[in-house]
C-alpha cells in the first residue's frame, strides 16, 4: 500500500494540497486536493462560477496578475511549492505555459509570434526549424507555411488559437494549461484543436478547462468535476470545491457523487 502511493507520487507532476483561492474577502474555491499526472490530459469541468478557471490560473501563477487574488495552501510542481516566496513566477510560467479562452496572437507576424517566446527564453538554435516544428505540432503548419510574414490576425479564429498553442509549445514547457480553448471556435476548428491535443499528449502534460462535457470525454484521461455550494451562513454567495476527481471513464459512466451524475447528465449547470 505504501509502495503504491510512492509510485503515484512520482508520477504526479503537479499537486494541489489544500488550496483555497480568494478574491479579496470573497472565497472563490476552497480546500482543493488534486494530483495531475505526467503525460495525462486532465479536464476540469463544472458549472459557471465553480472556480475551475481560477484553479487553472493558479497553476502557473497567472492569478498574480489579478489584484486582490490570494491563495492559501500548496501547489507542488516537481516537488517545489510554486507559491514559495523564493519562486520567480516568470520561471514558473516558462515551465507551465498557458493557452487562453480567446485566441490572442501578438500583433506581429506569424513567425514572430512563435519566435518571441523562444527568444526571450534564450533559445539559440535554429529559429526557422523551431517555428516550423512548433507550427507542425500545433497542426497549423500547412495553413501558415506560405504566409509566415503575415500578421497573426490574418488567420481565422481556429487557426489563431492553434497559433497560440504553437507559441506555447515553442517555449517547450512541461505542462500546457488551456482555459476553454475552443469556446470561441466553430466545431471544425474545435475538432482540429482536439486532434492537436492528442498529438501533444506524447510530449506534454495538458490540463484543460472546458464547458463542453463531450470534449472532456473525447480528449481527457482524467476529469475533475468542480461544483459550487452556497455559503453556510447563507448570504447567497457561492464557493467552489472539487466534488469528484477520477478517470474520465469513471466520471462519465459511474460517478460516485450524485451531483456529478446530475451535472454530466445535464440536470444543472
Amino acid at each position, binding site marked *: 500500500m505504501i509502495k503504491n502511493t510512492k509510485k503515484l507520487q512520482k508520477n504526479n507532476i503537479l499537486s494541489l494540497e489544500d488550496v483555497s483561492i480568494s478574491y479579496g474577502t470573497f472565497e472563490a474555491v476552497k480546500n482543493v486536493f488534486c494530483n495531475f499526472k505526467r503525460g495525462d490530459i486532465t479536464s476540469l469541468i463544472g458549472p459557471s462560477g465553480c472556480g475551475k478557471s481560477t484553479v487553472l490560473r493558479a497553476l*502557473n501563477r*497567472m492569478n498574480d*496578475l489579478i*489584484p486582490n487574488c490570494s491563495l492559501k495552501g500548496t501547489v507542488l510542481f516537481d516537488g517545489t511549492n510554486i507559491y514559495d516566496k523564493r519562486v520567480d513566477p*516568470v*520561471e514558473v*510560467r*516558462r*515551465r507551465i*505555459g*498557458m*493557452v*487562453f479562452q*480567446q485566441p*490572442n*496572437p*501578438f*500583433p506581429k507576424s506569424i513567425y514572430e509570434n512563435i519566435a*518571441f*517566446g523562444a527568444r*526571450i*527564453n534564450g533559445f539559440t538554435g535554429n529559429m526557422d526549424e523551431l517555428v516550423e516544428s512548433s507550427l507542425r505540432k500545433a497542426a497549423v503548419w500547412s495553413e501558415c507555411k506560405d504566409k509566415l510574414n503575415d500578421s497573426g*490576425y490574418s488567420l481565422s479564429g481556429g487557426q489563431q488559437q492553434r497559433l*497560440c498553442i504553437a*507559441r*506555447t509549445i*515553442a*517555449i517547450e*514547457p512541461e505542462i500546457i494549461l488551456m482555459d476553454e480553448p475552443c469556446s470561441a471556435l466553430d466545431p471544425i476548428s474545435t475538432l482540429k484543436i482536439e486532434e492537436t491535443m492528442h498529438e501533444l499528449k506524447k510530449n506534454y502534460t495538458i490540463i484543460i478547462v472546458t464547458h463542453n462535457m463531450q470534449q472532456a470525454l473525447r480528449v481527457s484521461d482524467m476529469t475533475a468535476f468542480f461544483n459550487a455550494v452556497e455559503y453556510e451562513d447563507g448570504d447567497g454567495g457561492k464557493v467552489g470545491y472539487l466534488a469528484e476527481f477520477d478517470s474520465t471513464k469513471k466520471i462519465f459512466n459511474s460517478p460516485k457523487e450524485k451531483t456529478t451524475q446530475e451535472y454530466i447528465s445535464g440536470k444543472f449547470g
Partner: protein
Amino acid sequence: MNSLYYQKKLSRNVGDKFFTSLSVFCAFIAILPLIFVVTYILIKGGAQINSDLFTLEPNPPGDDLDAGGINPALIGTLIITTIASIIAIPVGVGGGIYLAEYSKGGPFSKFIRFGVNVLAGVPSIIAGVFIYALIVSTKILFGSMYSGLAGGMALSILMLPTVIKTTDEGLKLVPNELRYASLGIGASMYTTILKITLPSAFRSIATGVVLGIARAAGETAPLIFTALFSYYYIVGFEDLFYEMGSLAVLIYNFALEPYDAQNKLAWAASFILVISILSVNIFSRILAAFTVKTKRV
C-alpha cells in the same frame, strides 16, 4: 383618433423644430471665432510671406523701413520645443507606463493621477514663473539667466500632463489578453511592456506627444519669463544658454510696437505659427485615425 401623418402644427413638432434650429445656431456661433481668427491671420499674415522672412534677423523697432525676418524666432521655437520634448517625452511616457502597467490603483497612483490632472489645469504663466524662480533668478545653469534651455524646461512642464495621460490611456486600451499572452509564455513584465504593450499603444502615445508639442509650441507666457527674446541668429551650441527668440514671444513683442513694419512681421509670424500648429494637429488626427483602422477586429 390622430392621423398617422406628420403634422407640422403639433406643439411637439414645433418645439422639436425650434430646439433643433437653436442648437444648430449655437454650434455655428461656436465655430465662428475659429473661422474668423484663422481666415484673418491667413489673409493678413499670408500677404507678408516672402523668402527674406525665413532667412533674416528681425531689425530693432524704430527703423520703419524694413523689419527683416523671423529666422531666429523660427529656429528658437524649434529648439525650445525640442528641448521640451526631450525632457517631457521620456518622463511622461515613463510615468504613464507606471500608472497603466505597474500601479495597482493604490493611494500613490491615485495621487499621481490627481496631480497630473491638476498640472494640466495649471495656467501656463505659472510654469514660467516657476522656472524663473528655480533656474533663471538663481543662475543655476552655468551662471546663465534667461536661456533657451530654461524656456524648454518651462514648456516641458506644460507638455508633461498630456504625455502622461495619453500614455496611460493608450496603454489601458491594449487588451489584457495580450499581456496575459506574453506573461503566459514566460515573458517578464519588462519584456512584455517593451515588446508587446508599448508597440501596441505606440500610435495613441504618439498622438498624445504630438498634441503636447503643438500645445507647447504656441505658448507665450512661460517663455517671457524664461527664454525672453533675442534678435540675433542662433549660431552655436552655447546660444542655448542665452536669451532665445521664439515665434510666440516675437508676436507678443512686435504686435504691440507702434511701427507698421514690426506689426507686419508679427502677422507673418502668426501665420507661420498657426499653420504649423494646425498641420501638427491634423497630423495627429491622421495618426489617430490610422490607429483605429489597425486596431484588432
